[in-house]
């Protein structure tokens, strides 16, 4: 059985206390007896002195009065003597206390052998001795008794004081001292020991400095030791997960990371890309220039990869010249390929290692979670296969694990390239589709629609290239071109007598450009176009993405005089609060609703939209109008404008001009 320090010290203290108590008690009782004995003997001695003195001095009984001073003095001096009485068998002859009138009886209240001195002193009322003398000139003896009356009150008071003193000095003060010592031990030793024990066990809270030197030394040593252990643990942890050469994560760390990422991605149903990067012909570098150069090159490459990657991407060195890269949180495949190409591009630049210029390329295989594998080994295997495919196809490239994906990516890359080239080569044109006033059939505006006229592929529909343009941010450049063209065209139309409002489609990405407003206004002013003649068409998607920024830009443009139309109303993410908030001038009913105009439910929708728009002081434009009946219907419900094939398909400028400028002239 083990005892705690607290219990052990408690036992020691209790033992000491008990021993002390018994020792002190014994001492006290012994002392009490000794004191009582001294008092008793003193009284007895005084009594003997008096009796002797009187016995020797007195000649006649009548002379007893001469000894009055003697006995008075004795009573005055000795506090324990209450009175002295000299008596014979008949009467009291002399007394210090006049209250004693009758002779005092013999005191047999004690048994001398059986009681202690203290008990004797308490129980005995009087001490008695004989005064025997011979009458002068005779042989006749006279015997008197001298009685000393013990002052019990004084005795009790005296020993009571002693008892109180004993209690104070031998019980209370030591108790206080013991308690103080106990509290001190508890505060300075036991509690710190407990803190040390807790610290040794949990190592969570470092105890503050202790006052006791030895404990403080232990605490300090423990803190040092645990800190050192922590540091070493961290170091070991890092070493176990770090590639010593490159400083990148090693395979262990990669495994841990991917396991965690798989769990997260599975929960949120997201994908991530697993890249297997292998340097091309690295062995040649090692063999020809030496391993130290090879190592330096690897360090350089590791550094470059880290720099190129984003903060939340992960890279690990898993072999000699093999690296695994995990990329997640990318918006599209396009973005991913941009990252991959950026890596390869940076790596392919000349490396200067100890005055040796080295050119090296890389082959990257890409697999995706979850479609190419749901665990790290399958992801690694498939990306490895893809990497080998890349090498087989000529190195310095990347290859996806699935062919279809590969092809798609390659297609997009080509399209992206062609799109940008098309802008440089002026392959884009704006077509215009008129907007007609329902009441009088006059043209009041036109929507500018982009077309790509490729010399090799012919007309490419915006459905094909616009989504990609939005994805790769080319939409900003393209959108900027569209704006310039449309505004310029408005001026040109006006110069020819056709002063109509041109509607321009604008995407949210364009609005995020901080120079958009400035460019827009500059273009308007450069072309001296009245802002009221320009209308911006936005989709409901704009309410959802970067809502506040879009609102600010649109408000500013609206305040400038530009009108705002909400395209494809009812097909997206509208809520009435957005319609209330954003400065919308026109609502465009989508073709989907117009196709259904002749059904009861379809008509209700259109009717509701028109009434709502009117109530909100907006103009309503019906899109996709292809039949006369639709126009009749729209007229009935007081729709403002329409647009669609019934009037005209989107026309290139010359065709538009020839159709509508002649009309006006006519």
């Amino acid at each position: 059985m083990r005892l705690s320090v607290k219990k052990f010290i408690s036992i020691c203290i209790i033992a000491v206390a008990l021993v002390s108590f018994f020792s002190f008690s014994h001492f006290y009782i012994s002392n009490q007896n000794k004191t009582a004995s001294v008092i008793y003997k003193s009284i007895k001695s005084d009594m003997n002195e008096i009796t002797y003195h009187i016995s020797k001095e007195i000649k006649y009984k009548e002379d007893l009065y001469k000894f009055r001073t003697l006995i008075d003095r004795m009573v005055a001096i000795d506090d324990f003597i209450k009175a002295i009485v000299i008596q014979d068998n008949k009467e009291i002859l002399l007394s210090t206390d006049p209250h004693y009138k009758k002779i005092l009886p013999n005191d047999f209240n004690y048994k001398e052998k059986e009681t202690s001195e203290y008990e004797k002193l308490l129980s005995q009322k009087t001490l008695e001795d004989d005064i025997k003398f011979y009458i002068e000139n005779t042989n006749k003896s006279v015997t008197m008794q001298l009685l000393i009356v013990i002052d019990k009150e004084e005795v009790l008071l005296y020993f009571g004081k002693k008892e109180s003193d004993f209690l104070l000095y031998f019980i209370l003060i030591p108790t206080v001292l013991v308690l103080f010592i106990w509290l001190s031990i508890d505060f300075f030793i036991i509690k710190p020991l407990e803190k040390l024990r807790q610290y040794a066990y949990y190592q969570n809270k470092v105890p503050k400095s202790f006052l006791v030197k030895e404990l403080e030394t232990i605490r300090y040593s423990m803190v040092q030791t645990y800190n050192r252990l922590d540091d070493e643990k961290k170091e070991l942890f890092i070493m176990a997960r770090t590639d010593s050469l490159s400083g990148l994560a090693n395979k262990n760390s990669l495994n841990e990371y991917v396991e965690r990422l798989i769990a997260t991605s599975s929960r949120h149903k997201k994908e991530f890309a697993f890249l297997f990067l292998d340097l091309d012909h690295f062995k040649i570098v090692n063999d020809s220039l030496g391993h130290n150069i090879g190592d330096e090159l690897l360090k350089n490459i590791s550094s470059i990869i880290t720099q190129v990657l984003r903060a939340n991407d992960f890279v690990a060195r898993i072999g000699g010249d093999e690296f695994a890269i995990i990329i997640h949180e990318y918006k599209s495949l396009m973005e991913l390929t941009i990252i991959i190409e950026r890596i390869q591009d940076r790596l392919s630049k000349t490396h200067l290692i100890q005055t040796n210029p080295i050119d090296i390329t890389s082959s990257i295989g890409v697999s995706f979670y979850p479609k190419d594998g749901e665990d790290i080994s399958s992801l690694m295997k498939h990306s490895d296969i893809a990497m080998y495919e890349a090498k087989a196809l000529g190195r310095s490239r990347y290859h996806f694990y699935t062919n279809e994906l590969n092809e798609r990516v390659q297609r997009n890359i080509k399209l992206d390239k062609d799109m940008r080239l098309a802008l440089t080569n002026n392959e884009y044109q704006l077509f215009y589709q008129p907007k007609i006033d329902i009441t009088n059939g006059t043209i009041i505006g036109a929507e500018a629609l982009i077309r790509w006229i490729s010399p090799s592929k012919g007309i490419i529909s915006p459905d094909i290239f616009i989504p990609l343009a939005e994805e790769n941010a080319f939409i900003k450049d393209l959108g900027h071109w569209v704006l310039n063209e449309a505004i310029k065209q408005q001026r040109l139309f006006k110069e020819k007598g056709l002063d109509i409002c041109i509607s321009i489609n604008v995407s949210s990405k364009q609005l995020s450009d901080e120079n958009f407003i400035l460019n827009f206004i500059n273009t308007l002013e450069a072309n001296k176009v009245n802002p009221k003649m320009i209308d911006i068409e936005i989709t409901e998607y704009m309410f959802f993405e970067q809502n506040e920024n879009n609102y600010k830009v649109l408000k500013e443009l609206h305040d400038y005089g530009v009108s705002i139309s909400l395209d494809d109303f009812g097909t997206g993410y509208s809520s009435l609060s957005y319609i209330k908030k954003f400065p919308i001038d026109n609502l465009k009913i989508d073709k989907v609703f117009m196709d259904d105009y002749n059904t009861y439910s379809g008509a209700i929708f259109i009717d509701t939209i028109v009434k709502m728009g009117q109530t909100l002081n907006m103009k309503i434009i019906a899109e996709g109008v292809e039949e006369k009946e639709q126009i009749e219907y729209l007229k009935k419900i007081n729709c403002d404008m329409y647009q669609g094939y019934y009037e005209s398909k989107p026309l290139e400028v010359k065709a538009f001009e020839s159709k509508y400028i002649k009309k006006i002239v006519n």
Partner: protein
Amino acid sequence: MLKLIMYIKIIISLFITITLISCSSYDNKLKISTTNWIGYTPLIYAKEKGWLKELNIELVMASSLAENMNLYASGNSDAYLGTQHEYNILAKKYDSLKPIMIFDRSNGGDLIMSNTSIKELQNTQKDIDAYLEIDSINYDLLKDFIKSYNLENKTINYINEEQVQIEFLDSKDMKNPTIIVTYVPFNLTLEKNGFSKIISTKESLDIFIVDAMFTKMDILYKHKKQFMELKKVVDKSIENLKQNPKEFYKKVKPYMNNITFNEFQSMQEDIWWLNKELSPIIKNRLNKMNFPSRDII
């Protein structure tokens, strides 16, 4: 923290309790020594009434003024009663000794008795035996008497005895003209033994005898409360004496050699109580005697 506070509270409580207990009445007892002089009977009365016990004051009886003084000097009492003579002797030894309570002045209570007349003393050629307590006011009284009645040229045998012994002298046993310097109540027994008063403090003697309680200043401070209460008790006793002398007499009688009530009453005329405010005349007298009255309660 709460535990610690609890421990501290317990310790303090125990400490206070035991300290109070240990500071017992034993430490605070006040011992006053006195004789059975008529002027000190208020204290004896108070003792018999139990008032002194309440104040933790013990009254110790001495057989004479000199013995009383010796008891004090040997440390067996904290304060003592006596005349200015007993004060002057010990004042030389103890700087801080002061009178703190005045009881009375002698008005015939101190007297000189003889077995002959003053005239015969003046005319005698024999030695004159003088019995007195030399270490007391008796001596001053005798000096004053000798001077007043031109007895300086006489041979006087000074016999130093305690009053309790002087009391039992018998004129029949005197071979020489005898002078006995005494004070009440010892004169009563001497009268019975054939001695007569020849002079007292009531008559033409110039001496002014005052009875008081004396103590050192440190004792006064230590027992100040007790002394203050004692003063009230003394006043109360004297008041009771005046109101009900018979009751007073019964209480003090055992200490007064069992004198009769009439004897007791006649003794009252031998003193003037001075426990109240001192008159200017008395103050003047005290000042002349160099008797300090500043610390008088």
